[in-house]
C-alpha cells in the first residue's frame, strides 16, 4: 500500500514539473466524482503555481548562471569597457594635451612691431669663448688632434601618430649612437620644445644656439634630422677641408645661385662652427620662423622667390636658401656647399643600389659609391601620412638601417640575413684569440690610423 502511494506521489511530482500540486487524492482514480467547477479551480491553481514557479526559476537562474549569450556579453562588456579605458589611455598619451596647460592655451600675442629674436644679442662670442677655453684646459676644443663635434638630433616629445614611427626613431638613434661611438662624437637628443613659437622644423634654431652658448668646448655642432641614417660607418667628415669656413652644408652651387631652387641645399644634415658668425647667421635666419602670420607670410615670399617651391608656410631650408641668395656677399664666403660626399643623401636614388655597392665597393668612400648619409626626406614615419608609399619608405629605411648595422656587426662576426631581415647570422666562428680580429676590423683603429697622430 505504501509503495502504491509513493509511486503515485512520485508521478504526481513529476507531472507537476517542480512543485507537487496539492492533489489531495494523489492521483488515485476517484477524481471523476469532483464537480467541474472545482476541477477548473484546481487547474487554475495549478497553472498559477506553475507560472509562479517557472518565473522564480528563471529569475534565479538568470541571476546566477545567465542564459547562454548573456554570459559572454557580460564578460564582453567588461572587456569592452577595459579596451575603451586602454584606448583612452593611449589617446591621452599620444595627444598633445598637457595636464598642466588649460584646455585652451592662449595664443601668444602677435605684435607685428616686434621682430622675433632668439635671445639677447651677443657680439663678442669669439673672445668670450677663447678666454673660457684658456681658463679651462680640462675642456679643450681639440681632443687627440680632432675637433670636438656635438651631434644634435631630436624628435617631438609625444608618441608618433603610429607605432611604426617610434620604432624607426629608435632605430635611427641607435644608428647614430653607433656612428658616434666609433668616431668619438657626443650626441644630444632633444625632446623638448625650447621655444613655442619656433616649433616644428624651426625648433633646431633655438636649440643649436643654446647648445653653442652652453658648450664653448664644442667646436662644431652637427645638426642631423631624425630621419637621416648613417650608411657609411667608416667615413669621417674631413674637417681639415673646412678650416676657413663656418658652415658646411650639402648642396649644389648652381642650383642655389643660378636656378634659385628651393632644394638647392639641405638643412637635414649640416655643420655649424661654434663662433660669432654662426650666432649672427642664426639671428638673421630666425625671423621667418615664428608660428602664425609671420611664418605664413614668409612662406608666400619664399614660394614667390624660389623655384619649384610649393605653397606652404615658411620652412627653415627655404628660408636659408633665400638668405644665401639675397645676402650672398655677407655669408657665402664662410659657407662651404659640399657635394663631394653625401653629407645628406636623398634616399630615393640610393636605397635600391645597396646590393650593388656591397658587391663593388667598400665603406669609407662617403659618396655615391657608398653614401655617407641616407636621408629619408618626405617619408615622415612619425606622422600619419607621408609623401611616398608607406611600404617603400619603411622597406627602404629597414634596408638602410641593416646596411649600416652590418658594418657595425662585422667586428663581432655577424651580419643580417638579408637587408630586410631583423635576424642575424654568424659570419665568423668564435676563436680563442679574438684580438687579431679587433685589430683588423675595429673601425676606430683605422680611423685613428688614417688621421695620424698630429697634435
Amino acid at each position, binding site marked *: 500500500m505504501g509503495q502504491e502511494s509513493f509511486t503515485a506521489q512520485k508521478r504526481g511530482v513529476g507531472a507537476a514539473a517542480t512543485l507537487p500540486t496539492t492533489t489531495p487524492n494523489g492521483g488515485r482514480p476517484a477524481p471523476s466524482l469532483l464537480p467541474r467547477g472545482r476541477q477548473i479551480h484546481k487547474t487554475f491553481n495549478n497553472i498559477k503555481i506553475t507560472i509562479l514557479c517557472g518565473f522564480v526559476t528563471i529569475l534565479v537562474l538568470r*541571476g*546566477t548562471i545567465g542564459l547562454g549569450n548573456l554570459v559572454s556579453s557580460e564578460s564582453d562588456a567588461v572587456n569592452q569597457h577595459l579596451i575603451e579605458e586602454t584606448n583612452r589611455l593611449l589617446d591621452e598619451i599620444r595627444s598633445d594635451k598637457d595636464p598642466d596647460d588649460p584646455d585652451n592655451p592662449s595664443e601668444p600675442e602677435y605684435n607685428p612691431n616686434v621682430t622675433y629674436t632668439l635671445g639677447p644679442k651677443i657680439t663678442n662670442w669669439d673672445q668670450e669663448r677663447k678666454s673660457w677655453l684658456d681658463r679651462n684646459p680640462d*675642456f679643450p676644443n681639440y681632443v687627440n688632434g680632432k675637433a670636438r663635434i656635438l651631434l644634435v638630433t631630436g624628435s617631438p616629445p609625444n608618441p608618433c601618430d603610429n607605432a611604426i614611427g617610434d620604432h624607426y626613431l629608435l632605430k635611427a638613434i641607435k644608428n647614430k649612437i653607433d656612428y658616434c661611438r666609433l668616431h668619438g662624437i657626443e650626441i644630444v637628443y632633444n625632446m623638448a620644445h625650447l621655444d613655442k613659437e619656433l616649433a616644428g622644423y624651426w625648433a633646431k634654431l633655438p636649440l643649436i644656439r643654446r647648445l653653442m652658448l652652453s658648450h664653448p668646448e664644442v667646436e662644431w655642432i652637427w645638426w642631423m634630422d631624425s630621419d637621416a641614417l648613417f650608411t657609411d660607418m667608416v667615413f669621417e667628415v674631413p674637417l681639415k677641408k673646412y678650416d676657413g669656413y663656418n658652415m658646411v652644408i650639402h648642396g649644389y652651387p648652381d642650383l642655389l645661385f643660378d636656378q634659385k631652387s628651393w632644394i638647392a641645399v639641405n638643412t637635414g644634415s649640416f655643420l655649424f662652427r661654434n663662433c660669432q658668425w654662426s650666432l649672427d647667421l642664426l639671428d638673421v635666419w630666425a625671423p621667418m620662423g615664428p608660428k602664425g602670420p609671420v611664418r605664413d607670410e614668409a612662406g608666400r615670399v619664399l614660394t614667390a622667390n624660389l623655384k619649384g617651391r610649393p605653397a606652404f608656410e615658411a620652412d627653415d631650408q627655404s628660408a636659408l636658401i633665400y638668405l644665401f641668395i639675397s645676402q650672398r656677399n655677407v655669408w657665402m664666403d664662410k659657407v662651404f656647399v659640399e657635394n663631394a660626399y653625401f653629407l645628406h643623401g636623398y634616399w630615393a636614388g640610393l636605397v635600391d643600389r645597396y646590393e650593388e655597392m656591397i658587391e663593388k665597393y667598400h665603406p669609407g668612400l662617403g659618396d655615391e659609391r657608398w653614401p655617407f648619409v641616407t636621408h629619408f626626406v618626405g617619408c615622415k614615419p612619425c606622422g600619419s601620412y607621408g609623401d611616398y608609399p608607406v611600404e617603400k619608405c619603411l622597406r627602404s629605411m629597414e634596408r638602410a638601417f641593416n646596411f649600416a648595422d652590418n658594418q657595425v656587426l662585422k667586428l663581432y662576426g655577424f651580419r643580417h640575413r638579408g637587408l630586410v631581415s631583423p635576424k642575424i647570422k654568424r659570419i665568423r666562428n668564435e676563436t680563442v684569440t679574438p684580438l687579431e680580429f679587433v685589430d683588423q676590423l675595429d673601425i676606430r683603429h683605422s680611423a685613428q690610423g688614417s688621421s695620424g697622430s698630429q697634435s
Partner: protein
Amino acid sequence: MTESWFGQRRRRQLQRFLQKGKLTILCLFLTIIVLRGNLGAGKFGTPETDIEEIRETFSFYRKRVEPRRVLEEAETIKNDDASASGNNYATFDINKMFVDEEGDDIKPDPNKPYSLGPKISDWDEQRADWLKRNPNFSNFLGPNKPRVLLVTGSAPKPCENPVGDHYLLKSIKNKIDYCRLHGIELFYNMALLDAEMAGFWAKLPLIRKLLLSHPEVEFLWWMDSDAMFTDMAYEVPWERYKDRNFVMHGWNEMVYDEKNWIGLNTGSFLLRNCQWSLDILDAWAPMGPKGKVRDEAGKVLTSALKGRPVFEADDQSAMVYLLVTEKDKWAEKVYLENHYYLHGYWGILVDKYEEMMENYHPGLGDHRWPLVTHFVGCKPCGKFGDYPVERCLKQMDRAFNFGDNQILQMYGFTHKSLASRRVKRTRNETSNPLEVKDDLGLLHPAFKAVKFSNFFPLVGDITFQSGLAAECAFACQCAFMLDMDSD
C-alpha cells in the same frame, strides 16, 4: 469499515502532510538559492564564483585575456579606402615586410652541453699585451676613472604595444644624456646573437662578445631597457671596486643567508673585463638554453631559492643560485652594493619624487635621490605586464621627466611638472652666457675633464706607460692605474 475509512483518512492526511512537506522543502531550497545568488553566503560563495571556478577549470586560455593588464592594439582599424596606394602608416602591417633571406644557422648538437664559445684561459695576458701595443686606447681615462661601456638593448621588431617603442626611445635618450655627462660609451643592441639564449639570457652572449671585442673597456655596465637614470649628477664610486670584478645591487644577507631570489638584481650591474668575468659567464650560462634545459633549471631554482615562483630559469635566479652554491669560488670578487641605487625598484621610489625635489638634491644616488629607477615588471614593450598599465606608463613619464629636469636645468629649462611634456624657462637668456653657472655643475663636471697629459703620450712617456701596463698584466688583481700626477 470504519477502521479502514479511518486508516484511509489517516493515510490521506499523511500524504497531504508529505506533499506539503515536499512543497516546503522545495520552497526553502529555492529561497536559499535566491538569497545566495543575491547576498552571498560567506565562504560558501555565490553562484558567480562557482561559475568563475568552472570557467577557470575549463578555459584556461580565455583567462589570459586579463584585460586589466593587457595593452594590445585595441584600436579599430580606421577606414582603409586611402590605403590602396598605402600612404597611411596606420594601416600598414610591418611584420609582412620582414624577410629572412638566408636559412637558419646549423642547429646545435643537443647532446653537447651549451657553451658561450671556445674556452679562453689567458684573457688577462692577451688584453694586457694589447693595451700595451695600443696606448691610444687606454683602459683608464683618469686616475679613478675606468673606461666604461654601457650596454642596453631591445628586440629588433616593433613592440607589440603601440606606445612601447616610444618609451624605449625615451629610455635611450635618458641613457644618452647620463653617458654624455659622465664620459661613458654606449652600445645599444638590437641583435639576437644566439637563438638558444633568447629573452633575459640574451645579455650573456652579448656581454661576452663585447668584452672580447673591446679590450680597451675596463668595465661593462649592463642596463635593462626599462631602467632609467634619475640622478644625473651621481658618479659611480669606481675606486670602491678596485678589488672587485662584479658589482650588483643587492644584500649579502638576502643572497647568502636567505637565498632569496630577489636578493640581487641583474638589471643593472658592472662587470670588469678580465678572465674572471669570462669564467663566471661560462658558469652562469648553462641554465639558459631555451627548452628543456631552461625549464628543468627553473624547477631547480624554484625549489632552492626562497620566494621564487614557478617559471623557467631566469638569469637573476641563476646568479643567486650560483653565488650560493659556489660561494668560495666567486663571492670574493662580487660586490653586492646597497649604499646607492645601482638598481632602484620603482614601486617604492616613484611616488616620492616631489618630496625628493623639495628636500634633497642630485648627486646622492641613494634613497634620497636614486641613481637608477628600474621599472621591473612593467614590460612596456610587450602585451602583458605584472602591473596595471596606466600606473606603469604614467610613472615612467614621471621618472623620465625627473631625470630630464636635471639635464634641462643646464640650459635654463625645466618641465612644467613631472607629468608634463612641456618645458618652461627657469632663467632668462643673457648676453653673457658663460658667466651663468648651472646649479648642479653638470655642464663641465669634474668627472668629464680630459686630463691632457694622460692622453698625449710624448715619445719619452711611452716606455713609462708600457711599464705601467706590464705591472697591471694581471689586470683583475691590479685594477687601477697609479695616479700619474703623484709621480
